[in-house]
Structure formats: C-alpha cells, structure tokens
C-alpha cells in the first residue's frame, strides 16, 4: 500500500481502484455464512478450484507468496 500522506493522487487512485482482473491463482477473503467464520482461500479463478485455505489468524503470521 502506498503511504496515503505522501503519495500522489494518481498513485492513490491506482491503489484504490485498480486490480488484476486477469485469471490467475489469487488470495481471497471468504465467509462461511452459516457459522460466520472468515477465512482466506487460495483459488484458481480460471477453473474455480480452491487450492488452499487459511484461518484469518494466518494472515497475521504472513501468507505464503501469492502464486500468481
């Protein structure tokens, strides 16, 4: 994340709006509604295949490098 106090408006807009829209292996936040349990899934967005899941606490310890 760019530093909001020092970065330019254009850089900040790129951080706020832009994203990688191409298919790939991506980390996503998911919520199991029935239990209210939040977790992170590593998912292939081309084939809709979940490759790994992590409980929310794992984010604090640092997730493995994004494969995409």
């Amino acid at each position, binding site marked *: 994340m760019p530093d909001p106090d020092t970065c330019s*408006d*254009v850089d900040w*807009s*790129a951080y706020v*709006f*832009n*994203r*990688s*829209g*191409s*298919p790939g292996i*991506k980390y*996503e936040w998911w919520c199991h509604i029935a239990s209210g349990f939040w977790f992170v899934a590593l998912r292939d*967005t*081309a*084939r*809709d295949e979940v490759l790994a899941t992590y409980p929310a606490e794992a984010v604090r310890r640092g997730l493995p490098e994004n494969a995409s």
Partner: protein
Amino acid sequence: MPYRLLRFGVSRKHPEPRMFTRYDSLKAAYDVVIIGAGGHGLAAAYYLARDHGIRNVAVLEKGYIGGGNTGRNTTIIRSNYLTPEGVKFYDESVRLWQDLAADFDLNLFYSTRGHYTLAHTDAAMRTMRWRAEVNKHYGVRSEAVDADFVKRGIPSIDMTCGGHAPILGALFHAPGAIARHDAVAWGYGRGADRRGVEIHQQTEVTGIRLKGGRVTGVDTTRGHIATSKVLCAVAGFTPRILDMVELHTPIYVHPLQAMVSEPVKPWLDPIIVSGSLHVYVSQSARGELVMGASLDPYELHATRPTLDFVEGLASHMLDMFPFLSEVKVNRQWAGLADMTPDFAPIMGITPVEGFFLDAGWGTWGFKATPVCGKTMSHTVATGRNHPLIEGFTFDRFARYRLTGEKGAASVGH
C-alpha cells in the same frame, strides 16, 4: 427441387455468395486492427468503413463471429438510465437501432415492447420518479406509473408477488425493445465485409508490440501484423489484453447467467424487470421466455452453469407468474461480464498511443452496440474521444470522477 439442391451441393462453383469472405492469410499491415468480432467490434469496423472511409481494417476473433456476449445476452434494448451521460448515450443508441435493419437489409426482429421496471418498496418508487424525471429532461419517454397501470399492462402478473413483495408501481419506458442478437453481429459483419474490412475468425491475439509508448503491431496465432491503431472490444477477456500493453484498470470479471423456457403461446408482450426479485424477462418471437438475473457472486473466468442460479431465478419468476409452474426450462448458459466499480463502461483513448478501449460493458453492452460502433469509430479515426463518451473515459478513476450508473443497472448486483 431436391435435384437442384443436390446439383448445387456438389457443384464446385457456388452461385450463392457467402455472408462473409474467408481470407486465407493475414496481410502484413492494416490501418486499424480490431480485436473481437462481436457486435461492438464489428459495428466499429462497419462505421470506420462507411462513415470514415477507413477500409484497410482487420477484425480478429479467436472464436467465431458473435460467439461471446453478443450471443449470450437477453437482447433487451432501453435508454431509461439514471445519469445524464448514460441517458444521452443510450438514447442515441435506441435511435440508431430504429433504422438498423434497413441499413443492413437484414431482419433484426427488432420489436418494441415497452419496458416495466417494477417497484416493490417506497424507496424503489422514489428512484423510479428520479429516473423518469432525468429521462424526460433529455427527451426520453419514461414515466413513473402506479399499480393500476402495471396491472392493466401486465394482466397476468400476481400483484402481491407471492404475498411478500407487493408491486407499488413501476418505471414504464415505452421504447423498450428486444432484437435478434446474432443478426446484429452478422449485419454489421456483412456490411463491413462488403466495404472491404477483413474478418479473421479463429485468429487469437497473443501479444501487442509497443515502441516508445505507441502501438506498432499485433502478434497472432496466424502471424504478425503491423499497425498503428488497435481497438480492443473483447468484453470478459479485456484484462488479458490489457496485460499485453501493461495498462491497469478496475475491471473485474464475474459470470452472468441466463436461461430460456420451452416455447409457449404469446402471452407476455412487455419486458418485465424487478430489481427486488432479481429478474428480467421477455418473451421471444419463438415464444420462449428469456430470463436473466444478477451476476454470479464471485470472480470466475469460465462459463459453467449452476443449478443454484436456475432455482433462484425460477422461484422469483413464480412469485410474479405462479401459473408458469408447469413450464420447463430448456437451456441455460453464461457469459463473462467485465464489470467496473461505477457500472459505466471504459471507452476511448488510453495512455498507450494507438490503443483504444471499448470495455467495462458488464451486463449492459448489447443495447449499446450501435452507439459504441459510432463513437469508437470516430475516436479511432480522429484520435480524440467522441463527445458522447466523455463520461466514460479511461482516466476518470485517476481524476476521481466516476459516473455512478449503478442505480440504473437492471437488477441489483
């Protein structure tokens, strides 16, 4: 007659001209290369050749003509949008639609039906009045109507919607229409083809060459082409093309599904949309009910259908029309919708010189086909954005000037 048909079949020289010319190879260079032979790409090619005299154009398509979202939408045409930018743009499109069949000499089955956006809550009624006022201000025929008007227009509807979503009124948009979507791509394609544009199917773009920030050529599965202008009109595949020129946008891709019922006798004349029930439905010339709902809830680059979608949509259809309970669903499919955060498209020039974008068409692109062709061909020919697309420019996110069109998306996303 069968004898003549047989002789025609085995004859080497076919007297009937094919709809499109088939070219064996690509030329070394074109003035303009258009990626994507859907409605938008072919319309741009058509108007480039017809209105701007630019005929040395190649349209590259990795699949077949009109096989993407042009052939996967629910064919609804309307201009009852919410923002002035949107209303003016789609109104011009509806005007162009009126003479399109005559332009092409091809029957588009353009059928003006009237379009109801149902309101089930006071809040929705307020939005309908707001949209009606914006529409009327720009000369578009829309009005907020009460429950009695809806009941007279759609006598077969259950006004209580299963008892849990009573209809309070609607936004009625008389010019709302449907058309035969494949014919739109074919009409534009044939018109462009006759004016010298080359359409190359089964030709995938694998890279775009840049030099000093400007386009110099396109690599394809059938060889390299030199060109200084590229128009990208590839809907759900936009992010992959943008990676080739290292441009970043907010576009994200979700599947959008639709389905049709078995054909039944004509009983539903107008087009019905309900934002609260997440349904839009019309009856085609063949008698099939063409139905759609919201986007699938998460990112995916595949067109798989889901049972969940059919169940949800069928249940909401039955809220409105309980007598359909014995009618079967015939087909179900999906397309890849390229969405933007403000529900408006991204069109026109980009920071890469010679690279033009017609994208972010999400769930609302079919109705805009003619006006996109008109405005993008102008933009490509002159190098300057057409005045009608100034609310949809690539740089609006960097300027924090979004065009909030979400209130007018046909159903909530």
